[in-house]
């Protein structure tokens, strides 16, 4: 652009001499007809003298260059696409294998746990059975005791009944005897009028005495029966109370066992849930990385000299990996930069999605922070 040539400068001050010589040559070489003609450059009157350049050739050459470059770019793009595709396939394959491996480990772990749990439950069961058997024994003992009491009661009742019967018999005999006596006395009354009244009185006194005695015996028997009954009831209440207490203790023990069981089950379930969470988190991590790489590949950042640009986007995905919504949560302040981030999110669609529905569900809502470095 500048007329002091490169050679002049390299040669340092000696170039000045050369320059002057050159100037001399130009002076010699000049002829009077070389005075140039400036050409008016009206916008309307476009080209004045296109004597030097074949515009057609220029354009053809440009077109040819463009085609060669386009072809190159296309091939490069195709190659890049292939590489991308292969990369993605390899990643997918790796992810799938990793998942399989994890699944196997997971299964083995769970089986081992199930075996342990089963063994534990078996022991628990045996212990429970033993407990139940002991309980049964206690019950049987109690039953035997109760039976004995009941038998005793029955025997006693029988005896009492027999005594009562004998008494009744006695009373009957007594009554017969007295009737006989009465008849005899009436006969005697008939026979001896006079003696009758005194005999009657005697007899009556005798009779009263006997009746009182009978009444007395009966009252005593009744009283005894009542006392027996009372004693039996008290005994029964005692036994009932003891049984109730035993039942209570048993129920409490059972409740405790049940509670322990429930807690054990809960903790086992929690452990399983934790394992499941861990597994899902692993898959989510893996796919997050794949998504990150995919978006990174698709991010065509504008070449902006401004440094420290950073955009934060919120992205919601549709099942299947297509973008549902993109929102700029925090703008970089540069609309072009923000848009390049949004476009990267769209361009990366459809995003890789895990087949596991739980992991896929965890990969629906994202926040992306885009920054050049």
């Amino acid at each position, binding site marked *: *652009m*500048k*007329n*002091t040539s*490169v050679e*002049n*400068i390299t040669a*340092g001050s000696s170039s*000045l001499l050369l320059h002057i010589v050159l100037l001399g040559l*130009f*002076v010699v070489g*000049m002829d009077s007809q*070389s*005075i*140039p003609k*400036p050409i*008016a450059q009206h*916008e309307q009157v476009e080209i*004045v*003298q*296109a*004597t*030097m*350049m074949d*515009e057609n*050739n*220029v354009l053809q*050459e440009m077109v040819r*260059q463009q085609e060669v470059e*386009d072809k190159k770019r296309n091939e490069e793009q195709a190659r890049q696409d292939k590489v991308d595709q292969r990369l993605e396939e390899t990643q997918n394959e790796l992810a799938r294998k990793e998942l399989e491996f994890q699944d196997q480990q997971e299964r083995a772990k769970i089986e081992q746990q199930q075996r342990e749990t089963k063994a534990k439950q078996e022991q628990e069961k045996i212990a429970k059975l033993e407990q139940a058997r002991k309980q049964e024994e206690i019950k049987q003992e109690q039953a035997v005791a109760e039976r004995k009491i009941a038998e005793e009661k029955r025997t006693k009742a029988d005896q009492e009944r027999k005594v009562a019967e004998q008494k009744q018999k006695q009373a009957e005999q007594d009554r017969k005897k007295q009737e006989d006596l009465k008849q005899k006395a009436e006969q005697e009354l008939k026979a001896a009028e006079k003696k009758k009244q005194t005999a009657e009185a005697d007899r009556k006194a005798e009779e009263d005495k006997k009746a009182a005695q009978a009444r007395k015996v009966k009252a005593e028997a009744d009283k005894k029966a009542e006392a027996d009954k009372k004693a039996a009831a008290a005994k029964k209440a005692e036994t009932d109370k003891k049984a109730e207490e035993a039942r209570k203790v048993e129920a409490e023990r059972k409740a405790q066992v049940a509670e*322990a069981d429930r*807690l054990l089950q*809960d*903790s086992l379930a*929690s452990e399983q*849930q*934790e394992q499941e*969470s861990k597994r899902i*988190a692993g898959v*989510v991590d893996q796919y997050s990385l794949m998504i*990150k790489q995919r*978006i*990174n590949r698709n*991010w*065509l*950042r*504008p*070449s902006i000299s401004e440094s420290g640009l950073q955009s934060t986007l*919120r992205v919601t995905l549709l099942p299947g990996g297509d973008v549902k919504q993109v929102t700029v949560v925090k703008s970089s302040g*540069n609309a072009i930069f923000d848009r*390049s981030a949004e476009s*990267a999110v*769209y361009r990366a669609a459809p995003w890789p999605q895990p087949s596991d529905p739980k992991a896929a569900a965890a990969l*629906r809502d*994202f*926040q*992306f*922070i*885009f920054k*050049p470095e």
Partner: protein
Amino acid sequence: MTKRLLIALGIIVSALSWQANAELVIEITGGSEAALPIALVPFGSEGSVSPVDLSEVIRNDLAGSGRFAPLPQQDLISQPHKQAEVNFADWRLLRSEGLVIGNVTSIDGQTYDVQFQLFDVYKGQQLVGKRYQVPASGLRRLAHQISDQIYHALTGEVGVFATRLAFVTVITNADGSKRFALQVSDADGANPRTVLQSKEPIMSPNWSPDGERLSYVSFENGKTEVFVQEMTSGRRSSVASFKGINSAPSWSPDGKKLALTLSKGGNPEIYVLNLASGDLARVTHNSQSIDTEAVWLPNSNSLLFTSDRGGRPQIYKVSSDGGNASRVTFEGNYNSSPDVSPDGRYLAMVHGVGGKYFIAVQDLASGAVQVLTETGRDESPSFAPNSSMILYATERNGKGVLAAVSVDGRIQQRLGEAGIDVREPAWSPIRK
């Protein structure tokens, strides 16, 4: 048992919190600055056919910038010309960042009604939509302006497709004589127009900040002489024809002054010429060395220039009012032909290594230097007005050709190659 219970509770609580906090946070760092895919649907046409294929010009502009990768025509799913005909889901499948549709209608065979729309394919939103009426002669420039709009909307940078390039061509005749021409073309190298012809060398074209004038050095009068020529009228005047060398003109940012290299005092030194008054002020005073190729720093009263005062050519900085110069380049033992990016961040220069010359940029703030080119015969770097690219001259098959490189070296472009020697390019400012 209590302990176990607590553990179980803890697990439940943590599982719950994991459920509640289901939004995954992922950090995306890196990305790439690869070209943006864009779908350019050939514009619809009504009435007499446009003499310029606008969509083709736009396609070439965007592809040539290196920032866009237009989808191949055969990949275009459909050919909508109106928004109602656009099915965004289709275009999303093509992973294209933007979609451009348009229509050209001839009104009376002379004037054309052109409309275009740029859509964000993913959001299904219009980013730009414009309508113009232009004469047939304005169609190509309009296409470049549409490219600028698309470029700006999608990259955030100002587009420079509607700017111009100035350069010098050399034709060697059968008898060995040479013909020189100062030419101006579109930014894509197309549509070259000659603004000056001479049998003697023409050098160092430099655009005024308003893009209305060119200054240059011509040998037409048998010696170096600096001219200023108006682009529309073609009127020109000699502004420096002192004894000795008159070279390397550079417009000040306000367009009122020219920095020049003059050897009227015996040794090439930097001067500043006030164009209105004709006043000339000497800036450098170093009779032991050559000081040349001054350029102005944007929004500043300072100049960068090349000097061999340290033994080897390096770039120095000096106030345009004079005073002490300070050295700017330290990497390597040859740095010359400075140009400063309009945003003031970078210095472009010719960087010599072992007899080969490359275009390099130096970050003016950090001093870091990056070599951008590979051919080894590169010269005359000139920044694009959006500071993104550097135009330069290089050699291919023994002939001078124009090329451009992005400031980061990632995008390399070749411009107009027609077997003609091309050299000394200068990128115009953006037309207001």
